[in-house]
């Protein structure tokens, strides 16, 4: 866990997680909460965007395949925004095709984690992203 000290930036360890599969969502939320983060879980892209805009987190973990707005769309909207454009985003998805990975990174993802994943690994990735962001 690291803290950002830049003024105006949130210093809480808030993470927004979005996945339409509630089992996976519970798993991730539980894991991250155990690790000490403040986690908000949502089941749709629209809700994710709302949660992010309402209270900008340190990190967002988004599943790609969600009904309504997909994770990539949310990512694009986030990146397009002035206020939260540099939010760290990890894409969490079962889509492993090269084209999908490229699209994800091209849209601005900080990392791309493939399901099924080991919760331990996910945590390592989350810390990795947050650490990088702190440089």
């Amino acid at each position: 866990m690291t803290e950002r000290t830049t003024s105006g930036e949130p210093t809480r360890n808030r993470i927004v997680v979005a996945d339409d599969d509630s089992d996976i969502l519970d798993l991730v939320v539980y894991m991250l909460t155990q690790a000490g983060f403040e986690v908000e879980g949502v089941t749709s892209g629209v809700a994710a965007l709302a949660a992010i805009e309402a209270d900008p987190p340190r990190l967002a973990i988004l599943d790609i395949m969600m009904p309504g707005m997909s994770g990539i769309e949310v990512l694009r909207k986030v990146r397009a925004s002035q206020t939260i454009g540099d939010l760290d985003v990890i894409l969490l998805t079962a889509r492993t095709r090269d084209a999908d990975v490229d699209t994800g990174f091209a849209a601005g993802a900080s990392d791309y984690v493939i399901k099924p994943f080991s919760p331990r690994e996910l945590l390592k990735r989350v810390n990795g992203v947050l650490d990088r962001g702190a440089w």
Partner: protein
Amino acid sequence: MSERRRPLAVQGGAIAGHLRILVFLCWAMLLVVSLTAVGSLSVQSDNIGRLTMIDGPALDVNNQVRQAMSDAQIGLNGYQASGDRGLLQPYFGAHDRTLAALATLQGKVAQEAVSGADAARLKSLEEGQRLAAQQWWASALLIEATLTAGGHADLLQSRAMFDHYSAANAALGDYLMTVRDQTRLAARTMSSRGELVSVAATLAALLAMLVLGGRVAGGISRPLTDLRDAMVRQRGGEPGARAREDQGSLELRSVARDFNALSEQNLGLQQSQARDLSTQRTTLGIARAIRVTSETQQTLDVVCAALGEALGVDRVVANTMGTDDEILLGAQWCRPNLQPLGDLTRFSELGPLAQELWLSAGFRAQDDITAEATSQEPGGALHQDSGARAAIIVPVGFDDRLIGMIYVCVVSKPRAWTAAETNVVHTVAGFVARAIVEAENQGYQREYVRRIETLDRQKSDFLATVSHELRTPLTSIIGYLELLQERGAGELSAQQHRMLEVINRNTVRLRSLIEDVMVLSRIEGGVNKADFVEVSIRALITRVGEELSPFARDHDVEFEVDPGPQAAIVLGEQVSLDRAVVNILSNAIKFSRPGGVVAVTCTLDQDAGRVLITCQDHGVGIPSQDLTELFTRFFRARNATDQSIPGTGLGLSIAKQIVEDHHGGELRLTSVENEGTTVVIDLPSYEPSQTQPMVGSDSVGNDSYADGVFGIRA
């Protein structure tokens, strides 16, 4: 025939005849001349013989007689005058001479008489001279005797006798000279006559030859010149040039006739060739016009117009027909002054007619269509409606399939269709058939490609969906499993731990299976060599080694990695190559015993142009009887299943497909049970060019793409 100035035609008989006459005349001339020459020569020689043998000598002898007589008389006179006996010598000698000469003369005169001179006169003259001579001698003898006896003689009488003798001798001599002169004259006359005859004969012959020559010239050289002239003009581009058949000898007239006949034949041939060429050009033009059409209706329209113009007919109708011989598409063309036909599909009987024509490889060409005939036959309705007086119907087909038909007609009057015209229609029918079939094939091809693309897309979508659907529940399973195992929900009993371990092992299997199936479906589609890039094996091995380090650690296996030289480059697909190497290495790790070592080396054989990746383990190995089936899908060696070593049985098969089918390399495996396995991946090396992008950097860790895809592994 020549259009120019016509010289008088000379029609001669056969040249052979003329030449025969010519030769005969020459012979005749030669004969006449030689006979004349011989004749005149012989007469000449006769005359000259006479002159030399008779006339001359006769005169000579005559002179000799006179000479002898003179001598005698002089001798006698001298003796009488001088009394010198010695002077009588010549007198005595002369007597014999006289006698001899007279005898000779007599003989000559006899000869003379034979050769035609006035025999009687000669004879009398000669006798006269002889008598006179004899008289003198008689008197002379007397006188001599008298004188010798010492008497006295009177010479007057003797002189008178001598004069008489002289006169007789002169007369004979004159006459002999006359005869001689006559002979000479005759000889001269004969020779000049002979000359005349020769000259006349020669002249006559020459004249005859001139005349004949002229006729021959007229009979040969003029017509020959004319013939040659006609030939030269034909060669120079006047195919209508002909030789005159009314002049010249028989032979040349017939040659001229034959030449003209040949020229006509040749002209006919040239004309038919020109027609064929023009037909070819026409059909080529139509072919070109058809080639640029894209739809069948357009093709038919173009064909109708092109055929109509090319053949100079009044109407052209072209149809395509369906499988039941019904008319599908129709097109028509007609002259501006005619009304187009209405709905072309109503001529339903044309279908069966066309079918029959196509199957029998026939066609219809009617030169004169009459009203009664049309009402009975199929196609009659079309004839009537179009007002056709002559028509051609040609079926259009391909192999044994009828495609349509072409109908061509004229309305004003009957027309004798030539083979060239029906050929044009046939050729065009062929073009149309080919164009239509090609269009159909292209249509089929496009349809086929579209369906394949659709299927491909559907398959990709399906796989993506399936993969997603399979992975999602698996995520929860693995996730919670891990939490449980990490005592996230409390402590576990040993038995609970064991049970969870079983679940874990099987989720790993399930995951690998999904992974491998996804990979398999991806590589099943083959590989597009155009997408190949330069792949650094050194970087690849280093990366894979790092990726699999956790895995190796979990199995208590140590890695010995020699990534090889910088220059070990292979042209290929990086993701696939990574996968192949990962499969091999993970096998090596899985089948090693705890504490074992897996050695991975990369070598470059520059001479042979090969890059070798060797992976050696000292694990459980593979039973020899399983080696042959090792690469088949889902096959797992007995000792693997016995020892519950996890695996899907796809790893080797996938690696082999990637290395051999996609990259043209070779995968070699050797193994001894309980001693270990060595796998060699043998790939063709690649000489790097400056422009190709390098995939797989040497420095590890900055390639987040690779991390993202391969980072998380059980």
